[in-house]
């Protein structure tokens, strides 16, 4: 029961600025859960997390508990984690294997596709439809839509809307590139998860990833320090991975401008392409050999040459192909968000790559990491700065109208442009108001 009209919501997003209530009003947050997170494709998990029949993984879609499970026929299912009897969550562990799903309250049992196997005390208790007696639905309900791209499972709470792959559009290539970096073209989630709580709105994080202006300022304390120590200790010799990972955050403005940003339908975007803060990582010979053996030198070079920095699949998912890690956005409240980081093993690649990805996540994504606290702090400061009447509007003027169409069907701009923000809020407005594309975010 929103007190906002579509008209009012539309007026809160202008071409060059957005109203502060979008980050501070709990009612707008609830509407976002319903209209953006309730309509878009939301990342659930990766198929490699549930290789065997009965393997399951529990998570949330738009704050609603769901289950990703492997059915005995090899297909995966995305089910609401809600017993058909009285509504209890049927699986509570983060992950595991369940031959059957058994509810802990009254013991109803379900097959791995959610269909009901056993009703405690027998179904007879429910009479039968002939008796004209109304019948309860006895099955666990699947989410309206679920689909997988290169093993990445997304689901949607909306029954209609674009298919996953066309919806991913140009960001699909980021998934491909990450998977192609495996000599076998296969990814495997490994090494656990980092869960990082933020006391700020989810959009700050989603915007930050392709904010090419902040790194050299906000991350000075860690990156500059690493840079200097690298110089000091290793000169022009090869610095250890930690230095290679931390230093580029302090690259100069030019570098970030050159990385460039690219925006697409539905609010998606990526930064980098030819170069990124990951492109200078030292080569790992055995790995290159394995790749060339698998793809030949040319295709290998091609794969390696794609250096996207952050890919944002709006609103829930971000990916770093070059370092094989993803971050998943879990909104909790208007001013609370959990970011989950997952690491992938490139099948057929040497162990060293995984170790580097793990190291990267420890250094950048853990709750005790060296870089994230300064992002976290800045989100916090905006969350509170926006409480002021100083200005109701947040600027997205930067390089307004200075972006160009790109050959992927989107638009590109220099790194520091606000284009990505403008594009995200274009999608926000479309989802929230149902305008052009009936809430598909186009």
């Amino acid at each position: 029961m929103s007190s906002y009209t579509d008209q009012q919501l539309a007026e809160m997003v202008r071409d060059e600025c957005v109203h502060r209530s979008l980050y501070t009003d709990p009612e707008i947050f609830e509407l976002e859960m319903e209209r953006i997170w309730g309509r878009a494709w939301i990342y659930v998990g990766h198929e490699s997390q549930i290789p065997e029949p009965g393997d399951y993984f529990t998570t949330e879609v738009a704050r609603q508990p769901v289950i990703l499970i492997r059915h005995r026929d090899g297909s995966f299912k995305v089910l609401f984690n809600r017993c058909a009897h009285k509504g209890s969550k049927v699986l509570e562990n983060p992950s595991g294997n369940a031959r059957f799903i058994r509810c802990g309250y009254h013991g109803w049992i379900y097959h791995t596709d959610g269909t009901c196997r056993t009703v405690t005390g027998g179904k007879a208790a429910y009479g039968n439809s002939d008796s004209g007696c109304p019948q309860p639905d006895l099955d666990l309900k699947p989410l309206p839509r679920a689909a997988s791209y290169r093993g990445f499972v997304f689901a949607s709470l909306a029954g209609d809307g674009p298919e996953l792959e066309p919806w991913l559009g140009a960001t699909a290539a980021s998934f491909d590139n990450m998977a192609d970096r495996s000599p076998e073209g296969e990814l495997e989630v490994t090494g656990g998860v980092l869960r990082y709580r933020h006391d700020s709105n989810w959009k700050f994080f989603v915007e930050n990833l392709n904010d090419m202006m902040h790194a050299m300022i906000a991350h000075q304390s860690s990156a500059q320090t690493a840079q200097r120590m690298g110089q000091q200790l290793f000169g022009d010799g090869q610095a250890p991975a930690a230095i290679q990972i931390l230093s580029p955050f302090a690259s100069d403005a030019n570098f970030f401008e050159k990385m460039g940003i690219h925006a697409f339908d539905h609010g998606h975007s990526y930064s980098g392409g030819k170069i990124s803060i990951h492109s200078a990582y030292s080569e790992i010979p055995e790995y290159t050999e394995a790749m060339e053996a698998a793809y030949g030198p040319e295709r290998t070079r091609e794969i390696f040459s794609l250096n996207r920095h952050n890919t944002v699949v709006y609103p829930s998912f971000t990916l770093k192909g070059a370092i094989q890690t993803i971050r998943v956005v879990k909104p909790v409240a208007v001013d609370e968000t959990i970011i989950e980081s997952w690491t992938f093993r490139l099948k057929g690649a040497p162990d060293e790559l995984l170790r580097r990805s793990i190291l990267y996540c420890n250094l950048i994504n853990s709750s005790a990491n060296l870089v994230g606290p300064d992002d976290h702090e800045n989100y916090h400061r905006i969350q509170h700065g926006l409480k002021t009447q100083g200005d109701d509007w947040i600027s997205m003027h930067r390089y307004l109208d200075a972006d160009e169409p790109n050959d992927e069907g989107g638009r590109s701009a220099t790194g520091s442009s606000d284009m990505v923000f403008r594009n995200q809020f274009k999608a926000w407005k479309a989802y929230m108001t149902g305008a052009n594309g009936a809430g598909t975010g186009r």
Partner: protein
Amino acid sequence: MSKPAPQTHEAPKLRVLEQFLFREARLLDEQRWDEWAALFTEDGTYWVPATHGQPDPLHHVSLMYEDALLRAIRIKRYSHPNAPSLQPPPRSVHVISNVMLDSHDPETGACTVNSRLVMVEYRRDSQAIYAGACTHELVRDGDSFKIRHKKVELVNCEGALENIQLYL
């Protein structure tokens, strides 16, 4: 540099181990970072696993896994003028208890010490409380010790945690 170890070593007194751990805790609370870092051997590692019973810091993510280089970077960062998350600065109290000697090698004098930790981190009107089990692998350094490995297993290591800015 740890001095050449004598032929055989008696098991260290718990009192001595306690005082060593208390001193470590105090250096952290008083933010005497360099002295704290100097407690470690050159190859000393500091580890805060991200999951219970985590076997391995290399193939599984951790909240922290730091060698001398990373400790040096973090410590230098603490005094960097432009770290938003350090203004105002975080503060800590480390409470060390239940100190037990798990093992001791009479030949090298190396030993493994187990303890319980409650660490309270405070910043800007909010206080976070961390509790866990610590394992210190110590090697002889003259009549004192150096830390070859410190592991802190937080009871809530699998929780969705806010910033942990100070060493546990």
